[in-house]
């Protein structure tokens, strides 16, 4: 268990009557890049949101870095974690959204320093230095004082990545980070993610970018209808999918 950064054991999630996750089991090793692929509504976003406890799971077990997500186990009984503890755990996991969700009333620099200063209590000067370094890494060193509305979609998404990295997360979750971008802007964001993967970050990436999954991914998981249909080395799965559903899905996106 110490090896895996994320471990899901039969994770179930319902919204009212609708069962969205029907027993997801998978392992993400430290330093691994796992890509999640699947048709719309298959529960990919929901699963990511369960990992940082934005959603509560109904059954099964979910561990991040060996610790239960959202609960504390004492003997046989589970105790819900208090809000403060949940927040502390979330702060260790970075998340990047399809629609960026930058804070529009703050400058780029403030977006990146807000959580380190406000949540982790980093000294402001240190947070600024770190933010400048991270923004330079994604090629935005001259946009520090701009507001998000003044940036292109691709630039906004790279700020969002820097914002998540500023918390020094041990795990990064990406939910279709390039789906809302014009095709010519996708490359810059994928480059930033490749760089991150090369630096050894553990990443779970929901994406329809098959090229990224093939080159940067260590594992590819195909989900449909709330279950994992198949998983394995991206090249193998993409070249010879074993299941009919995977095959028909891939024929549509490739």
């Amino acid at each position, binding site marked *: 268990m110490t090896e895996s950064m994320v471990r899901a054991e039969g994770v179930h999630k319902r919204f009212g009557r609708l069962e969205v996750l029907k027993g997801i089991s998978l392992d993400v090793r430290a330093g691994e890049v796992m890509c999640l692929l699947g048709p719309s509504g298959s529960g990919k976003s929901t699963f990511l949101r369960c990992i940082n406890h934005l959603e509560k799971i109904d059954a099964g077990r979910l561990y991040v870095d060996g610790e239960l997500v959202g609960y504390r186990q004492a003997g046989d009984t589970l105790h819900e974690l208090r809000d*403060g503890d949940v927040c502390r755990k*979330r702060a260790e996991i970075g998340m990047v*959204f399809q629609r960026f*969700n930058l804070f*529009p*009333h703050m400058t780029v620099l403030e977006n990146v320093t*807000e*959580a380190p200063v406000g*949540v982790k209590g980093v000294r402001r000067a240190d947070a600024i230095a770190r933010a400048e370094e991270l923004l330079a890494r994604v090629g935005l060193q001259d946009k520090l004082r701009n507001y998000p509305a003044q940036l292109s979609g691709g630039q906004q998404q790279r700020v969002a990545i820097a914002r998540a990295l500023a918390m020094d997360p041990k795990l990064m979750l990406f939910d279709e980070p390039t789906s809302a971008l014009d095709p010519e802007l996708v490359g810059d964001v994928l480059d930033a993610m490749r760089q991150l993967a090369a630096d050894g970050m553990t990443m779970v990436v929901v994406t329809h970018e098959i090229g990224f999954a093939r080159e940067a991914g260590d594992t590819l998981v195909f989900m449909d209808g709330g279950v994992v249909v198949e998983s394995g080395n991206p090249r193998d799965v993409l070249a010879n999918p074993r299941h009919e559903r995977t095959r028909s899905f891939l024929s549509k996106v490739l």
Partner: protein
Amino acid sequence: MSGSADTQQARAPAGRPDDVKAVPVRHPGRWVSGAIVVLVGAIVVNSVATNPRFGWGTVGHYLFSSRILDGLRVTLELTVIAMAIGIVLGVALAVMRLSPNPLVKGASSFYIWFFRGTPVLVQLLFWSFIAALYPRLSFGIPFGGPELWHGSANAVITPFVAAILGLGLNEGAYMAEIVRAGIVSVDEGQTEAAQALGMTRLRTMRRIVLPQAMRVIIPPTGNETISMLKTSSLVSVIAYPELLYSAQLIYDVNYRQIPLLVVVSIWYLVLTTILSIGQYYVERRFGRGTARELPPTPLQRLRRNLAIRHAAVEPPAASEERR
């Protein structure tokens, strides 16, 4: 692509086509309506200026009299304090109304229902007569527990306190709706992103949601403040000397009702005008980050116009700029 650009270049070798010179369309209707407006305006101004019963001399005499200025100060105090109470209460009630706890939510809804459902004038009178309802006020453990403090209601609920309670508590109900509309206008993705960064719910509200809600909250709050300035004149019924009651006290003695009401109106107009200007700048401040560029302030616009005028006087500089 480059081919078509070349042909265009060839057709207009000067680089810039001739200015459009055309005879503009005439709008006789505009002239007629303009003339009517000027005429009606002249009639009104003439009647106001020449009617001796307006008593302009008396207006001038009382406009800056110390009793009127004291009333003005009281009106401003009432407005500021009542709005402050209203805003704090409004934020609390709005957050309560969005709470998952049905009792907390219900309490907030009940408050809003009650205070919006009764006239402020009636509420003001209630507060001023509260001593008849609760002659003795005390503070301590309820249901027979020890008392920490007590006093007579008449001593505690002075006309000033009654005015503040009446205006402020009523305003809270209206502000609650305004703040709530602001909070729900903020994209849910913002809360989600803040939580994903590990922010607590309180911190998310304070640093992320409320500042963005401000854009929606500020304009109607400005209107509420202007409205409060005028509503505070109702306090005259409980004999607290704000602007209107101060004027009434004067004309009760000298019977110059009209000039004194003109004085009062002038001061209300001056204050509402100042507040409107302030509102413009506050809205501009909270518009940050939503538009690519903020609209210019009137001062900036004036400066820019002067600069353009200035440039037009010096033709070389102007043509330089155009290129």
